[in-house]
């Protein structure tokens, strides 16, 4: 389909802005732009239809089952959107003074309090704009803690080999070195290996639990103890909190600080890649380092508080505020029993689906899983030549969004499924039927799967060409 720029024509425009009602003021020539930017010009109808067309080529949560592992693509309630579009929230300036944004501050305060209770933390900052941003902020807390104790030889952050790529990247950005620790045969942290790498240089450990294999590490209390005894701190990556919310809390498992993904666990939409929100929580002893401007309640008034030894700011203002409104609405709706029911159903759905799929596919770790599970298609590939990529792409033609592919890195030909609690048995049964059918097709007609998808707006794109000769913007042909 055409680009905005290819639809553009100089005689089309919208009449949006009135002529200026004060006199025209001059400005020295040297400051003035010589040529107007070549932005597209369209009529409102053309513009509207263009995006409706783009919409049809976008798979949203309401287009079908979206079992994208580690991304928690649950249904995004409409009421959350409606609350976030209240003019009282959308039309207030961030710097208009505490007394005139008490409503916003109450949203921040109540969300802080609820998230603290859900995670077992003592304080929470809502400033980080995404999960990785939260990781970075949480690691800065750890950095500040060791600096304050003049314990500056603690430069290592230990990260399991099953971790999300953001973990090691965030650790380096926060000024640490990354020490990778392998997983054991059960998919958990290898305790012997962990003991080998801890020491006086250990700043902390970053752990996702349940991990990216969808497994809850039964040794969790031993793991956090090993780190603490070595003088390090334990960081909880909340990417997979959806499995355990309301049932067990990071704060009770020995974690000192955490980040959450409101756009995963608390039902706020992903927006095609953002905006998200990545609150950071910590125990009391770290609260003095939190980013500036958390909200406190004094009598009936909400006030901004700057931590005594604050690490500063990780973005302007107070966070992705409207996303926080959505998450608060979500938590108020669910309440305690809704939260517990949601995590339970998420775990039930994953186990139910895994149980059915293991009749044909190999499960990477054949044991009770949490909210997600990983299939290993190495055997299928050897047998039929059909890869994880082929199966994932073929599922598109059956209206199912592919699972996460080739992750975690420690499982070859991995497909990672996270069905989430908002899917019914009926939907999951249909998806099981699809993947069972694809398994049969892999044996009967592998060529068909190599060429999948067949019924989508485009076939598989040539990614090599895109990377070798990058075309990153439209340019008018001369």
């Amino acid at each position, binding site marked *: 389909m055409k680009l905005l720029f290819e639809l553009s024509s100089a005689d089309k425009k919208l009449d949006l802005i009135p002529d200026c009602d004060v006199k025209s003021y001059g400005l020295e020539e040297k400051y003035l732009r010589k040529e107007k930017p070549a932005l597209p010009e369209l009529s409102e109808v053309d513009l509207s239809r263009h995006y409706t067309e783009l919409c049809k080529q976008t798979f949203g949560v309401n287009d079908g089952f979206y079992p994208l592992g580690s991304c928690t693509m649950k249904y995004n309630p409409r009421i959350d959107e409606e609350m976030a579009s209240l003019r009282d929230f959308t039309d207030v300036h961030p710097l208009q003074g505490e007394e005139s944004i008490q409503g916003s501050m109450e949203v921040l305060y109540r969300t802080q309090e609820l998230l603290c209770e859900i995670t077992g933390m003592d304080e929470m900052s809502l400033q980080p704009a995404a999960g990785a941003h939260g990781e970075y902020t949480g690691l800065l807390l750890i950095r500040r803690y060791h600096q304050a104790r003049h314990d500056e030889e603690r430069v290592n952050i230990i990260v399991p080999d099953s971790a999300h790529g953001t973990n090691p990247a965030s650790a380096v950005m926060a000024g640490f070195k990354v020490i990778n620790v392998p997983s054991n045969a059960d998919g958990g942290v290898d305790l012997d290996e962990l003991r080998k790498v801890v020491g006086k240089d250990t700043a902390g450990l970053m752990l996702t639990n349940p991990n990216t294999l969808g497994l809850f590490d039964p040794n969790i209390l031993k793991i956090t103890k090993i780190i603490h005894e070595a003088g390090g701190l334990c960081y909880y990556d909340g990417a997979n909190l959806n499995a355990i919310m309301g049932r067990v809390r990071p704060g009770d498992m020995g974690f000192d600080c955490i980040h959450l993904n409101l756009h995963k666990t608390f039902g706020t939409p992903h927006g095609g890649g953002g905006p998200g929100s990545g609150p950071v929580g910590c125990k009391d002893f770290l609260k003095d380092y939190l980013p500036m401007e958390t909200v406190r309640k004094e009598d009936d008034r909400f006030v901004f508080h700057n931590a005594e030894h604050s690490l500063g700011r990780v973005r302007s203002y107070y966070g992705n505020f409207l996303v926080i409104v959505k998450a608060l609405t979500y938590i108020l709706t669910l309440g305690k029993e809704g939260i517990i029911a949601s995590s339970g159903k998420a775990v039930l759905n994953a186990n139910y689906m895994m149980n059915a799929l293991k009749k044909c596919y190999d499960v990477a770790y054949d044991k009770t899983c949490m909210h997600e599970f990983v299939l290993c298609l190495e055997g299928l590939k050897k047998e039929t030549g059909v890869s994880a990529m082929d199966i994932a792409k073929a599922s598109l033609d059956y209206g199912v969004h592919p699972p996460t592919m*080739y992750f975690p890195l420690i499982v070859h030909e991995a497909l990672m499924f996270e069905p989430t609690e908002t899917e019914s048995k009926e939907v999951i049964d249909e998806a099981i039927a699809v993947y069972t059918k694809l398994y049969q097709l892999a044996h009967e007609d592998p060529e068909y799967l190599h060429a999948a998808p067949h019924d989508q707006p485009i076939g598989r794109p040539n*990614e*090599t060409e895109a*990377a*070798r000769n990058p075309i990153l913007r439209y340019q008018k042909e001369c």
Partner: protein
Amino acid sequence: MFKNPEELKYAKTHEWLKEEDGVYVVGLTDFAQDALGDVVFVNLPAVDDEVKAGESLGDIESVKAVSDVFSPVTGRVVEVNEEVADNPALVNEDPYAAWLIKVADVTEFEELLDAAAYAEHCEQEG
């Protein structure tokens, strides 16, 4: 079967080395390019940079992966293959023609294998 020209020396990390009048030419082996898949970018040092035997001299990207390239020698970079930098596909097309860097003032070597030993090493990794 992978091509491993007899006249070259090989590092276990899949780089080849050739001497040309006291200057050492470094490239990636056929095995390495095959394992990487379509190479889309090579990140090489600059002329005059020091490289150290066994340490990363740069990296090489395919669409979905990135791998370090380790230097088989310690020395000073005297030439970088700009042609490969501009057209990384050359590494896939003919890895033994698409050299990456040339190193002079070489003082140290990584453990190197001959073609037969390297072929055996690849077999084991394979």
